[in-house]
């Protein structure tokens, strides 16, 4: 059990927000907001973890240490805020937790995505794709 806890580490704010939304019977995010978050998480996870495993000729994780990372996330969140305030609020909480920083990491990616979220999001994306094909 301890080893699993060591392995999994801390969940991202995005995963916690989606879990909270599930517990609140989807009252936090609208359907389209949930889909947007999962689609973002699926795309980010695929690129980030492929890069980490050495399958891409770029080191995306390093960008999470850059001073431009919180700026980029803030700009994206500010742009989506009028249409999806819940997503903007999730991004704000992720940045606040990163600013403190609550986890041992000072890499913004560790606050926005995590492998469990990646598995869930990619699973959702594959399922959505399959449903679309066979609809």
């Amino acid at each position: 059990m301890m080893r699993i806890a060591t392995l999994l580490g801390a969940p991202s704010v995005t995963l916690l927000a989606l879990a909270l939304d599930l517990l609140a019977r989807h009252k936090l995010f609208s359907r389209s907001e949930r889909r947007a978050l999962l689609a973002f998480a699926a795309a980010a996870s695929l690129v980030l973890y492929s890069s980490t495993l050495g399958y891409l000729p770029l080191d995306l994780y390093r960008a999470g240490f850059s001073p431009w990372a919180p700026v980029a996330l803030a700009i994206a969140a500010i742009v989506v805020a009028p249409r999806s305030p819940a997503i903007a609020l999730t991004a704000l909480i992720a940045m606040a937790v990163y600013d403190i920083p609550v986890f041992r990491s000072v890499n913004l990616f560790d606050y926005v995505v995590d492998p469990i979220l990646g598995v869930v999001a990619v699973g959702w994306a594959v399922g959505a794709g399959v449903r679309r094909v066979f609809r």
Partner: protein
Amino acid sequence: MSRPRILLIQVLLVGAAAVGALRAHRWAAPASFAVPSVARTNEPPLLASELLPSSGTNFVHAATLAELPNGDLLAAWYGGTDEIDPDVNIFVSRQDRRTGRWSAPRAIENGPRTHVKSVGNPVLVVDRDGVRLFYVGVILGGWSGSTIFVKRSPDGEHWSTPRRIATSPLLNLGMLVRSPAAAYNDGTIGLPIYHELRRKWSALARVDGQGRVVDEVRMADNPFIQPWVVPTSARDAIAFFRWSARAPGFVNSATTADGGVRWSPLASTGLEHRDSAVAAARLDDGSLIAIFNNSPGDRRKLAIVRKGGRWSKPFQIENDPRPAFDGPTRREYSYPFLIATRDGRYHVVYTWQRTKIKHVVFNAPWVRAALP
């Protein structure tokens, strides 16, 4: 949500981004290496060796060494029944500067081990805050399922509980250490790390005094691992890499001219080996020395070479003609860990037949005489 609330979120986003960017900016500027001055010695040529006291284990491997502020040497290695066995511990032994005697090895990573399966590859780092021991903890399967931990000690005697350091976003798995850190003038260190989950790569992780990775720069891709960084000036350094493939290959090197922020493409050194660790250091005349297994088939030969213009002929520290595997005996002389001490001497510890740790000490006059 009402417009004023949305506006408030947007304002807070700007503030949060500013705080985060300012903190990250602190680490974004290139740092300068704290290059240790290499003492000149007037000693006559010196080459001596000894076996360190046994840790009482069947198997030992991957020794590390550091000089403490009072001049004592602190060595650490891992040992147990075999690699990745649950009974493996990390042992430390201290050499008294005045008597030259090594203390009885003591296990320091032997608590109830529920968080990892096994441990290995200790790396000692001495800085102004005391001693840090970075090591690998295997969580799942073999070495590719490992992660990096750190323990602290004010004196090399009393050790804190381990903390995991975050070096990878993917469950922090597949990350290992093996080589000494390069100190930066701002108090951070450049810790060479490498990745073995699926594909191999090497990186330099900049770690602050609290054990947080504040930047991480890729240095080399598959199959180069175990980078060994030798700073040569405040901005310049050269790194040597282990060729980690089944077929024999060459030790490769890369250079940086901006404190490790960017690394040059790899270049072959022409030093042939096969999947074995390399160690290097700088001499007082600016030339480099490297220690590696100069046998493309196995690890029965361990050599030291010197690079002025080009690499010298090797001097064999070990050259065992007997079979590499002979019943339970493994004739392997590997994983050299090399440091220069303030008195102008060089110390190397390495795995001796996987049952002992050997310590060899030499000085620059000996290197110049033996490796002209």
